[in-house]
């Protein structure tokens, strides 16, 4: 799956999860930049991404994520 495609799919998940159809993802985006991205929604995000991409993450991998760019790289590495 090309990186563009990952971003496209991920954008849909973010938009639905954070109830913001205008949300645009960039590699540098962090939890602080997105309204509602708390620890609860972070777990929801992880579960939704696991389901959408058919991958599994460990707690360590999830804990180390600094921004969207790293999340995409993590997904890419699992596909």
């Amino acid at each position, binding site marked *: 799956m090309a990186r563009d495609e990952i971003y496209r799919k991920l954008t849909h*998940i973010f938009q639905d*999860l954070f*109830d913001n159809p205008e949300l645009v993802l960039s590699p540098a985006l962090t939890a602080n930049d997105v309204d509602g991205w708390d620890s609860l929604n972070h777990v*929801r995000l992880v*579960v939704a991404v696991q389901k959408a991409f058919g991958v599994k993450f460990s707690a360590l991998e999830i804990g180390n994520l600094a921004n969207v760019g790293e999340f995409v790289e993590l997904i890419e590495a699992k596909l």
Partner: protein
Amino acid sequence: MAMNDLHTSLAWLPRPPQDFTTLCLSVLASAEDPGTRLQWLASHALDEIQLNQLARQVARAHERGYSLAPLSPFKLGLISTANTDFIAPALVATALRYGIALQCAEAPFGQFAQQALLPDSEIKRAQPDAVLIAADYRGLPLRPTPGEVAAAEGTVAGVLEHLAAVREGIKRDSNAICLVQTIARPAESCFGNLDLAMPGTLRHLIDAVNRGMASSIAGTEDLLLDVAALAETVGLAEWHSPLEWNLAKVPFASMFLPLYADHVCRLICALRGKSRRCLVLDLDNTLWSGVIGDDGLEGIIIGQGDPTGEAHLSVQQTALSLRDRGVVLAVSSKNHDEIARLPFRTHPEMVLHEEHIAVFQANWNDKATNLKAIAEELSLGLDALVFLDDNPSERGLIRRLLPQVAVPELPEDPSLYARTLMASGYFEAVTFSAEDKNRADFYRDNARRVALQKEASDVDAYLASLEMVISFRPFDDVGRARITQLINKSNQFNLTTRRYTEAEVRDIGRDPDCYTLQVGLTDIYGNNGMISVVICRRGCGDWHVDTWLMSCRVLGRRVEHAILRELVEEARRRGISRIIGAYRPTKRNKLVEDHYAKLGFSITERCEDGTALWQLDVASASCDELPIPMIVERSGFDVIAAD
């Protein structure tokens, strides 16, 4: 796709519309009747994110002070040994499905006993109608003591006392009903197979606690939410997600949240006395495999010894066991009444008999009209009905015209019909009394047929929504086998019931004096394949309709109108002056007795054997008034110059 996906994905509900997010965001665009629109959105199989989207709209509706009528309000307190933040929005959204405007009062995390015991806790101040007591094995004092019988008994008694104190605490300061969760066992064992036999293992302790909880509920107004059974149904190793527990103390994998929420809400619905009370059954390919009108008593498949027959048998057994616990059974089938009753009366493998069916509607009207008649006859609301039908377009019709009726989606495989119906939980019961046992018998005047009101008015709009495409081809090599099959199998919608061999069909296709049509139909539910065959023979400048037959699966779709228009247009091109049709009666084709009359033909002759001849003058025939809600495609025809 995993087997338990049936439960996890709420497979009995229709998939959400493609533009769910957009519909959801615009659901409050007008303040008028948001409750009904929210309920419609919730009636689909939604995942966790979609449930949350919907719950946010409910919160917005409350903020703006919109009335959610006709939804009925219900206040639920949530106390849990785990995180409830996940659960509350899913419950609020799922409750809409059951016509309930749910408000959740959540206890702060970790305050399981405090909330129940303190007189002015958040939960009690909210004055809930019910309180969900959601304990997880990790939040109860369930210390394993393998092999120590006395210690194990003490542990079980301690946990049960703790839970009893919580319930008593709630009752002391409120009128709330307690919904008490059973405990899902962990997927990991201690010794292995020995666990269940060894007092003091976690498995042994939890089993004892669950049984104790169940007996403590009996005779009270409190209710059991059997989460242990739910977890076992989908599999313990799937139910428990160590990752999600470790990350956020989510007590079960959140992929099961839609299922869990549906179980909580169906219980609340049952508590309110709103569970469904009548199961309306289709016959052909639902109660048996095959079409009784075409295949006959010997041709339908039902009963032991055949996997498909056993699949349909289990549908009948499920219906009968529902009847034994008070659910009323009815039939709605597109059939002749006498023919439809035949298997009930004479087929030895049938488990269901006429005396089990309170209302028996077998006719050629649309099923919406029939369901309304059934509800009226039984003095039940449409919201008490569940309609089981293998045909997706019949399901679509009822969902569109009678949204109050529950219409479970069915999988391709009839082996799963019974399981899907029961997984839906439409008949959830919170009590079982002697009256329930006998209720179905109160409808003594069994297997009645009731008069119909006029046809449901929105059928045309529904047909337009099917996006039908009809395709016309002359007989050809590819279609020959299926054409021959239809010619030899169709009994009901068959004007002349002339049978031809494959060789004869080939010769007809090559005869320059024959005009032939094989007709296909697709719609939004998929391809129905070849559904009609017509043969016209030329003689003295007229067309004699030798054969006109159609699959009953597409009855009521105006396919015959589209075919007539095709015939008339083609007849004009070829300079044909009249189309002459014959109806030759058989035991099974009464359905089409008035076929030509309905299409504007006039009768020219009626013979002693019942055969009737009809004719249509091609020049003056007007097909423009016939509603034909479909796109027409043609292929394989030679261009014919007018004579």
